[in-house]
């Protein structure tokens, strides 16, 4: 009985960070459901979708230390592809009369559900990421940043210049609104667990090792290129799914929605939160989203009867970003995950093991458990 309890607690402890973060997400969703406000719902959807992108970034850039400016391209691919697969066939025939036959023959009649379209979007994004990843996985530092930036520009140029398939630079309208906040929250919880699991997996560990010291990692037979490639493709897949969710909530979008601005918002959120941890990705998104949306609300409604000039909200965001970086250069979390609560820690298995009241096999399990992944990572920031 006691050992079953201990085992249960160990499972919770191993997955403590994603559990705690998921509770935060579900709480946010519960607030929206109860408030019943349309503007609040839109704001929270924006938060959820940004967070999904930030998590994808954490998975690739946070673990590998290689900066990407390009994953929004995969999001764009996912958004357009899923939209094409779910729009009503009649609308597609009028919007895209010039689509090449080999595409039109199966895209025009397609009427998929959201989940199917989401999977298709993820698959296409993953395939594209797998193609571009061949080049990016070989690079690091500035070269990788520029190469990923090039992917973004290539995708944007393609979308704008190919109106027969994408609607070109016009706003693509008529996508059915199928994403609900509950569904997005659920998808987000899945992504949080997946990203955290990846970080703790052997691939994540190898990737983090290569981030800390590439030569040392290679010397113990870590195939750095392969690990980067895997993370790059998974992150692309998540972005593609996020794109599908975006398309089916906001229902109308244009190429500039998936360009530099979004890229920088996402990167800023990750850096402000602390890019080496999943908790950092989530908290950074909350922080900047709340600052941004509150500032925008203040700009529209006026503060204390004074109406600030338009652009104030963005200026405030820039200042908040600067202040956050000046005060905590390593991010809000400093790269830490969610700490195990002190209340549990006192009676927790580690303390019990120290007191000598726990059987030998549990001690071994504790020693082998990955619940303190950052113990070996050099961190100079303060604990959360």
């Amino acid at each position, binding site marked *: 009985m006691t050992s079953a309890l201990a085992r249960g607690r160990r499972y919770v402890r191993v997955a403590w960070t994603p559990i705690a973060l998921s509770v935060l997400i579900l709480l946010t969703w519960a607030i929206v459901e109860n408030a019943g406000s349309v503007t609040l719902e839109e704001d929270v959807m924006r938060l959820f979708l940004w967070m999904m992108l930030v998590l994808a970034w954490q998975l690739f850039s946070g673990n590998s230390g290689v900066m990407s400016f390009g994953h929004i391209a995969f999001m764009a691919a996912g958004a357009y592809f899923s939209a094409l697969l779910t729009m009503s066939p009649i609308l597609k025939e009028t919007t895209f009369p010039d689509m090449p036959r080999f595409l039109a023959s199966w895209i025009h009649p397609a009427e998929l559900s959201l989940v199917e379209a989401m999977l298709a979007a993820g698959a296409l994004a993953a395939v594209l990421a797998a193609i*571009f990843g061949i080049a990016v996985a070989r690079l690091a530092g500035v070269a990788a940043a520029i190469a990923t930036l090039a992917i973004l520009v290539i995708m944007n140029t*393609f979308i704008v210049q190919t109106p027969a398939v994408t609607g070109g630079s016009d706003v693509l309208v008529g996508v059915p609104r199928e994403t609900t906040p509950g569904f997005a929250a659920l998808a987000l919880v899945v992504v949080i667990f997946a990203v955290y699991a990846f970080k703790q997996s052997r691939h994540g560990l190898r990737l983090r090792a290569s981030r800390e010291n590439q030569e040392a990692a290679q010397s113990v037979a870590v195939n750095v290129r392969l690990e980067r490639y895997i993370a790059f493709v998974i992150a692309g897949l998540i972005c593609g799914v996020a794109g599908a969710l975006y398309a089916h909530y906001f229902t109308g979008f244009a190429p500039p929605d998936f360009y530099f601005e979004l890229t*920088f918002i996402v990167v800023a959120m990750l850096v402000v939160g602390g890019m080496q941890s999943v908790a950092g990705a989530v908290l950074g998104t909350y922080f900047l989203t709340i600052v941004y949306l509150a500032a925008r609300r203040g700009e529209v409604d006026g503060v204390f009867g004074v109406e600030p000039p338009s*652009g104030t909200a*963005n200026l405030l965001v820039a200042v908040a*970003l600067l202040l956050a*970086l000046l005060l905590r250069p390593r991010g809000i979390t400093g790269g830490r995950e969610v700490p195990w609560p002190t209340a549990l820690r006192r009676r927790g298995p580690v303390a019990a093991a120290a007191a000598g009241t726990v059987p030998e096999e549990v001690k071994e399990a504790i020693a082998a458990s990955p619940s303190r992944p950052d113990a070996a990572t050099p961190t100079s920031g303060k604990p959360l």
Partner: protein
Amino acid sequence: MIAAIDLQVGVDAVSFGALFAVMALGLALLFGVMGLMNFAYGELIMVGGYTMYYTRDFGALPMVVITIAVVVLVAVLMELFAFRPVRHAAPLTLLITSFAVSFGLQQAAFMTVARGRQKGVEPYPWLTDQHHIAGLRLSNLDVLTLLVAGGLLVGMTMLLKRTTIGIQLRASTEDYQMAQLVGIRGNRVISFAFAITGLLAAAVCILFVLRTGSLSAQMGVTPLLIAFVGGAIGGLGSLTGAALGGFTLGVVVNTIQSSLPVDLSGYTLMFAFLFVIVVLVIAPNGLLDLTRRVWAAATTRLGVLDRRAA
């Protein structure tokens, strides 16, 4: 006839390449000195553009002087208030800081000078005068661009190699702490580097605005992107590399644009950036580094052959 058209394309490409090279120089300087990818570089160009707008009636020389002064001042202030506090942070934090500065300046411009109707600076008529030399069109602006680019490249190299402050700057690049230990004033050196960036940004701004004419709060984004990409393919570690990369990018973009069939010409950027990815994979440290390595390999091979022959 065909040869003449090709040559004309070549002249245009070289003129663009020279402009792109100057853009890349300013970015590479700060990257070399403090590992900072300065996104706010584009906003320096924007600040310069609006300064030109408000001083355009004073005549060419006062306009140039005031523009340079204002941009240099903004660059130095930028360092003082935004970058000095985070100087020792990770490169990525620096990058995001510069992004915040860039975004903030854009918004500030959007709220003040960029408000209302579209503003523009009309180029002086004598600048667009074209000369016809051996069947080629060559405007004064092309000549000016080439002269300024060449002058700045030589000037920067001389500054860094021959003057005390330049040597101090390079020492700080190598090892900031060591440089301070031997008595170099770190703050002064970095302020100076920012001032030089301001000067380069002002030069870019003047050449760029005289060419395009239009102003907007986001006008700095395109030159920044060009500098960013050009610098990376040439090698951001060195000024020569960055200038070479910017030049290559300008030539490549121009050549692709003129050689693509009409219905594909919209895809110019796509092909140009595919080229960029290919270059980065072949030469991750830049084209300059690649040429050096190829040269070194070739000379070693020759040396071996010489010895064998002997």
